[in-house]
């Protein structure tokens, strides 16, 4: 800890260290350090830097550059609106939402379906003019997320959230509705397996050859296992119309940029100070 405090003490301006450096180090050696002293020394260095001449020449410009860069990034980066659909899953403890969900997600994100949505809703017009439809489909799939909703006690999920991010909130809502419909339809198609099960049971009753009977029984077991793992999905909350964009706001991003610029300026000033001290 003492070593960390001594390192942090190097962040003080050179003029200050010339006057107080030796006695400050003596104090750091003598005192029993506490973890919060690290922040105290760091903050003390920042405050001293602000009163030093270098502050106006290095730290202030760095802070401004950081702030301006962050604002520029916030303008260049399109704001994305997130629409969400909450889907309730009727499930039992023996078969929590699991592997079969992945299959349905793959089904939802299949290229022909997404390509048809892109064309129908005229999504990503500028990207489509620049790149292939496959790349745009890939971009769209990155803006889709399906996640399980965990209960507060950490038990298995009983609901899913299907979300879609897009620069236009109304389009985000419409597309999210389409995705939710496709997701539920994919599960219903899988439900056709239960009809197969009924057919195989009928065949088992009329089959006479033991070898054929064994094969039918084996197929029936496989189909019944698949059928028992099916979930019934119900849309609990329809696709929401997002009011605010996702992620950091312009102000938040600007403040982060200002702070990052200030911090790098302070460190740069401290490095320049050390360099100057070494050459003197």
């Amino acid at each position, binding site marked *: 800890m003492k070593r960390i405090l001594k390192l942090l003490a190097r962040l003080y301006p050179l003029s*200050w260290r010339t006057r107080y450096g030796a006695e400050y180090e003596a*104090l750091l050696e003598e005192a029993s350090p506490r973890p919060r002293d690290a922040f105290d020394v760091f903050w003390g260095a920042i405050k001293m830097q602000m009163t030093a001449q270098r502050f106006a020449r290095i730290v202030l410009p760095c802070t401004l550059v950081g702030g301006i860069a962050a604002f520029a990034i916030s303008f260049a980066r399109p704001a994305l609106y997130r629409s969400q659909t909450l889907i309730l899953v009727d499930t039992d403890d023996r078969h929590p939402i699991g592997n079969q969900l992945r299959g349905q997600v793959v089904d939802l994100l299949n290229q022909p379906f997404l390509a048809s949505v892109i064309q129908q809703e005229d999504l990503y017009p500028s990207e489509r003019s620049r790149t292939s439809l496959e790349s745009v489909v890939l971009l769209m799939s990155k803006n889709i997320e399906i996640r399980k909703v965990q209960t507060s006690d950490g038990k298995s999920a009983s609901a899913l959230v299907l979300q879609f991010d897009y620069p236009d909130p109304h389009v985000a809502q419409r597309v999210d509705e389409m995705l939710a419909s496709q997701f539920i339809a994919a599960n219903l198609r899988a439900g056709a397996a239960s009809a197969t099960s009924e057919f195989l049971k009928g065949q088992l009753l009329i089959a006479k050859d033991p070898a054929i009977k064994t094969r039918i029984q084996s197929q029936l077991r496989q189909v019944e296992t698949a059928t028992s793992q099916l979930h019934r999905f119900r849309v609990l909350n329809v696709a929401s119309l997002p009011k605010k964009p996702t992620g950091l706001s312009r102000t938040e991003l600007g403040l982060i940029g200002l702070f990052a610029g200030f911090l790098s300026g302070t460190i740069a000033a401290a490095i320049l100070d050390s360099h100057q001290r070494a050459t003197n």
Partner: protein
Amino acid sequence: MSDPSILVLSSLAGGDKHGYAMMEDIERFAGVRLGPGTLYGAITRLEKLGWIAAVGSGDRRQPYTITGAGREHLEGQLASLGRIVRAGQRRLENA
């Protein structure tokens, strides 16, 4: 009452001290532990204002003394605080 400047001046009013001795003294009489950064921030400020001064020492541990102007400032601050304390106590008693 945890203004580091008043705490440092109060500590030096009891005799010359170096940084670590001030830190210990302040913890004893005020129950406040000043971090190294806060303590030296106050020392730097007070020395610039001429309210404390470094006294000769052959050691790395630099002792400081309170100056006449520092004593005057401390007296003014403590008198003002005393008035606030007395007024607060009177009001609490009458409430």
